[in-house]
Every structure is written in structure tokens, then in C-alpha cells.
């Protein structure tokens, strides 16, 4: 199963919103993946087996080295943006 991690600074709040809306975007695309939420400090363990990291441009430097593909989301509530970027990354 594909693993997608949503990352925010504190691990509560914004990453939860990103997780919920990523799941909605995946459902719209007809794709299945496990989506989890985590904070920047735990990204090394939380995203160790992840294929994709979803986050804000502001947090990319905090994520550091990773084998996962990092997708930057501008508007966390825009399901079109999420679906387009996920579809491009997964195709």
C-alpha cells in the first residue's frame, strides 16, 4: 500500500487537515493509499517508508533528506490542487 505522510510543524491541526483532504482527493481519483499525519521533528521515522510527503513550502527545509517525493500544497482546502498534484506524482 502506498504511504503518504502529511507534515506540519506541531503535528496537530494543519497536518490533520492535509490528511483529511488528501484522503478526499485520493477517493476522487479512485486511488488507495494510507495517509498519516506527523510533525516535522518526527519526519525521519514517520516518513521512513513513505512514497510521498505532503507539506507547505515553509516546511520543506525542516524535512531534510528523504527518499520520498515532496509535494508542496499551497491551499490545504483546495481539493483540485491536491488531486492534480497527487495524480501527477502517482502517474
Amino acid at each position, binding site marked *: 500500500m502506498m504511504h503518504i505522510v502529511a507534515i506540519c510543524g*506541531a503535528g496537530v491541526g494543519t497536518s490533520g*487537515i492535509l490528511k483529511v483532504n488528501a484522503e478526499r482527493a485520493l477517493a476522487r481519483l479512485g486511488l488507495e493509499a494510507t495517509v498519516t499525519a506527523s510533525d516535522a521533528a518526527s519526519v525521519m521515522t514517520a516518513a521512513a517508508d513513505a512514497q510521498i510527503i505532503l507539506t507547505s513550502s515553509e516546511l520543506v527545509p525542516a524535512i531534510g533528506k528523504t527518499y520520498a517525493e515532496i509535494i508542496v500544497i499551497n*491551499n490545504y482546502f*483546495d481539493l483540485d490542487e491536491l488531486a492534480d498534484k497527487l495524480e501527477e506524482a502517482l502517474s
Partner: protein
Amino acid sequence: MPLPPLPDDAINLHASAGDWRDAVRLAGNALERGGFTAESYSDRMIEVIEEFGAYVVIAPGLALAHARPGPDVLNSGIAVVTLAEPVVFGHPHNDPVNVVIGLAVTGTEEHVTTVAELANVFNDAGSIPALADAPTAERVRDILGAPAAE
């Protein structure tokens, strides 16, 4: 699952903030007046942004100010602050901000239903401008689908 109760005391409409720190502090004050947090929570929300940047500006015009659970979170809840004049947080796409939602949670698990409900509300792109223009606390609760205080 509706949002937690949103008392009038946790809503501050068309407030004045000189900069993003002021705006976050207003959200912290509203959380404190609503009985959700103690005074130090404002500083912790500001520290999150100082450490990680303006990522809390998650959509155009909207900041979701928050910090980790801690002893200064008395009850989980949200507060809503709208700004008469928008302020810049330093986000590359979503500035300036005229709606600040303060979020406080007592544990990392229980926030999930609250943020899922916030996602439902704001997936409607009209919700942020509607909140920014809301003239009364009652209208804010209507937009968010949040009950008044018990």
C-alpha cells in the same frame, strides 16, 4: 460531528492587529477568554511560527494558529478572530491574512474530528470571505456549524 462549542467570548470580529504576532496574540486571548487555554499558549503559538515559518497560513487569507498540547491547554476548542485590516504572515502564496482561527487541543488524537470538521467547512471556498465579513458571533457560528456555549 460538529465543532466544539464556540462561545461569544472566543470570537473577536474586525479587530486591529499591527502585525502577525498581534494577530496570533488576539487569537490566544480569545482562546483564553473562551476558557480553553492559559496565557502562555499565545507565546507557544507564536514560537511555532517563529520556528517553522508561516505554514499555518493554510489557505488564502486564513491562518490556523496552534501549538502542541500542553499544561496550558485547559479544554480543546477553537477561537475566531477577523481583522479589520489584513496582516502579512510571510507566506509565499496565501498572504495577507484576515481570518485567524486559534486551535487548542488537549491531546494529539482528539483533534482529528475537529480538524475534519474544519476541512468540511473550508472546502467551500466561500467560507473564508464569509467569515471575514461576518458581522456577528451568531453568523460566525452559522458559517462554521459550531454550537454556542452550553
